[in-house]
């Protein structure tokens, strides 16, 4: 009993008609010559009803257009076309399929017949549609980012985890006059004398996964050196790994040159002040020397007279006054000596 059943369900006609796969044979003009029951059931038709239809009539309009414009020429020029997504009309609406077709030609190379298998992929198609939607969404987001990055006045770029460039905004293309750049190795936009130093610094950040921040002199298409503030920030994915780097370069040339100019000016002022002080010091020393001489002369007289007076006999009261006068003269003499040494 079971062996006869097995024979029945493996018999060629049974397989052709009942396998969960559509089979269809049609002429280049679309006339359907043979179709299996599985396919006709999918479309809600009998096999006989399908023989009255044209291949293009069982497709949706858009699938018919695609088949006419793209697949028909392919099958005329080559013998196969694989995994073509087509939508067929059915009594319940539409069914999504993948069609594999083989074309046969006569001795003159003229197409005479197409044999095709049809796989129903409705659920897979839903998944694929979701993927396509997501892809479109991602592309839209990418366009938004690019639009935004082109509206800001900064140079903006993104790089892979290893530092190789993914995207550069229009400002970068305009500034450096190139579309392809790596920023990764010896980027020629950085002034030559700083290039190696900057690269090493960036390399350290890249390996350590740390933010890079630096004031850098860049040279663009105009061949003029300009100061930029460059910041490159790592972007971590959900797994905690660096997925990409976001970089920006802001032109700070005006502020930087102003800062440098202010610094130079301040430095000059300090130098001048020091020089003034030095000059003043000399003047003061000269004055002190001159004044000390001028004062020392009468003081020397006073001190000489005091020495003469020391030999004279004086009353006790006068001796006390004499000693006070001598001490004051000595004190004054000491002060003048110190001032002249200054």
């Amino acid at each position, binding site marked *: 009993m079971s062996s006869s059943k097995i024979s029945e369900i493996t018999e060629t006609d049974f397989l052709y008609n009942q396998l969960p796969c559509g089979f269809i044979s049609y002429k*280049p*003009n*679309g006339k359907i010559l043979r179709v299996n029951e599985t396919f006709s059931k999918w479309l809600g038709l009998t096999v006989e009803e399908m023989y009255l239809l044209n291949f*293009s009539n069982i497709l*949706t*309009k*858009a*699938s*018919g*257009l*695609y*088949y*006419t*414009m*793209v*697949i*028909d*020429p*392919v099958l*005329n*020029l*080559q*013998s*196969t*076309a*694989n*995994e*073509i*997504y*087509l*939508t067929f009309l059915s009594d319940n609406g539409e069914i999504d399929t993948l069609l*594999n077709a*083989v*074309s*046969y*030609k006569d001795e003159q*190379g*003229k*197409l005479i017949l197409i044999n095709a298998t049809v796989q129903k992929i409705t659920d897979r*198609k839903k998944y*694929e549609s979701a993927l*396509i939607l997501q892809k479109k969404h991602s592309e839209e987001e990418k366009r938004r980012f690019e639009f935004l990055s082109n509206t800001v006045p900064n140079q903006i770029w993104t790089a892979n985890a290893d530092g190789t460039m993914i995207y550069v905004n229009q400002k970068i293309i305009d500034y450096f006059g190139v579309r392809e750049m790596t920023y990764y190795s010896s980027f020629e936009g950085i002034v030559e004398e700083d290039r190696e130093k900057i690269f090493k610094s960036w390399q350290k950040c890249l390996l350590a996964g740390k933010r890079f921040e630096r004031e850098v002199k860049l040279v663009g298409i105009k061949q003029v050196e300009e100061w930029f503030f460059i910041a490159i920030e790592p972007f971590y994915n959900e797994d905690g790994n660096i997925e990409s780097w976001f970089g920006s370069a802001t032109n700070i040339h005006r502020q930087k040159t102003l800062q440098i100019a202010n610094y130079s000016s301040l430095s000059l002022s300090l130098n001048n002040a020091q020089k003034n002080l030095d000059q003043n010091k000399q003047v003061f020393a000269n004055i002190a020397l001159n004044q000390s001489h001028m004062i020392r002369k009468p003081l020397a007289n006073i001190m000489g007279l005091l020495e003469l007076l020391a030999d004279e006999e004086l009353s006790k009261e006068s001796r006390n006054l004499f000693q006070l006068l001598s001490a004051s003269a000595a004190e004054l003499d000491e002060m003048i000596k110190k001032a002249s040494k200054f």
Partner: protein
Amino acid sequence: MSKNVTQRNNVKIIGNGSQILMFGHGFGCDQNTWRSVFPAFENDYKIILFDYVGAGRSDLSAYDDERYASLDGYALDIIDICKALELKNVTFIGHSVSSMIGLLAVKHSPEIFDKIVFIGPSPRYINDTDYHGGIDHKDLEDLLAIMDSNYLGWSRIVAPSIMGNPDQPQLAEELTTSFCATDPEIAKKFARVTFLSDNRADLSSLKIPSLTIQCEDDFLTSKEVANYIQQHTVNNQTVFLKTSGHCPHLSDPKGVIEAIKAFI
């Protein structure tokens, strides 16, 4: 300039005749589409084959969104080639959208062309008041969605089948590897430009003789559209082939060759 253009558009020059036949392929194809037709002319004519930028083996990097945002950009490809090769008295043969591209090339540079042949032409694909182009806007959006789905696996479609086909020599497969090798994104843009074009007003500008070759049963265009062209174009004659489909140069090359020979 000459070398750039011939490389950009993958131009092939065949035959040594004094008269020139220039073949323009349609959407989704490249110059291989003419392989059953041009050999019938190569003994008597100089044949110019090319791929529009974005199609076949053209230079994809030459694709420019702005230039190819209308059929005029594609018409410029034709004019560029003719100027680079210093061609005159050209008979242009265009399939499908190439018919209107050729029409625009003639409009822009009439001094280059003598005659023009339209195969399966349509001056407007989208239906309009009192005009039946055949498709509506929803059909176009659905078509672009199908292209999206198929281009995800486009290489599979044209890859040799694992089933094989012993009837076909391997050589034929190799010849067509570039066929339809259009960049998917460019193809979608080309489809949008093609189907949103409206060249009905340009028909009256055509002063040189023209021939329309139309299949009796064409899913994309129709006898009605071919008749519209004839009614609005001076000196246009129409041949209806008793074959079906949109590519009679592939399905009925003999019929197409005879019609062209009778016209030129």
